[in-house]
């Protein structure tokens, strides 16, 4: 299991390949990998967005993410988990978050990865400030519920 707060560019494919290659004891044991990647869009709530700053609470971030992963491990038979989250200045089309869950069976991988993403969105202490094309800055006020999107 690994949790990383990442101040520089996040390459999800490289992270996944490197992590899976390093987890030798998993080889041949996992049948399912469910991965979620959140990426910065160039629009939000009707406005063009040119960039974003992600603030976080160092220490609490890791503590909360560890709790969330431990909860998922209690709820589903999870073989391994990787969570990587960007902080700092982010541009549109750059990845913000990566959650990957390895399990024996696919239902558990889907359920656990979604659980971790939803819990991360509601509990991990990160805050987004958007820089609009108009040069205005604004804090994102609230995350939407991933189980009931409009």
């Amino acid at each position, binding site marked *: 299991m690994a949790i990383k707060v990442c101040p520089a560019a996040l390459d999800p494919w490289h992270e996944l390949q490197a992590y899976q290659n390093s987890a030798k004891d998993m080889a041949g044991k996992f049948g399912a990998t469910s991965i979620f990647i959140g990426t910065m869009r160039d629009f939000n709530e009707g406005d063009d967005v040119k960039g974003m700053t992600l*603030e976080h609470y160092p220490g*609490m971030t890791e503590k909360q993410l560890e709790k969330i992963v431990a909860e998922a491990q209690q709820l589903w038979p999870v073989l391994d988990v990787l969570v990587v*989250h960007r902080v700092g200045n982010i541009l549109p089309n750059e990845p*913000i978050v990566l959650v990957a869950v390895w399990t024996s069976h696919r239902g558990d991988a889907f359920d656990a990865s979604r659980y971790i993403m939803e819990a991360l*969105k*509601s509990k991990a202490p990160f*805050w987004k400030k958007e820089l609009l094309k108009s040069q205005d800055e604004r804090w994102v006020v609230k*995350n939407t519920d991933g189980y009931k999107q409009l």
Partner: protein
Amino acid sequence: MTMSIKVRYFASLKESVGRSEDDLEFAGLSTVSDVWHCANPKQALPDNVLAAVNMDYVELSHKVNDGDEVAFFPPVTGG
């Protein structure tokens, strides 16, 4: 007894209080809510503010202890 409490603010709340942290040395602090009022006597605690003690979420009625780190911040928006 005098308690020593580190108070931290994040994101939009940090901007509205104008500081990222306070070091309180104060007697008579009992709850997280007391910590806010001691550190920000002229400012009501905004609605929807979340609080953490030693990096775990708590209610505002949570009791504080000497040496605690108390944090206040708006709803989180990561992911």
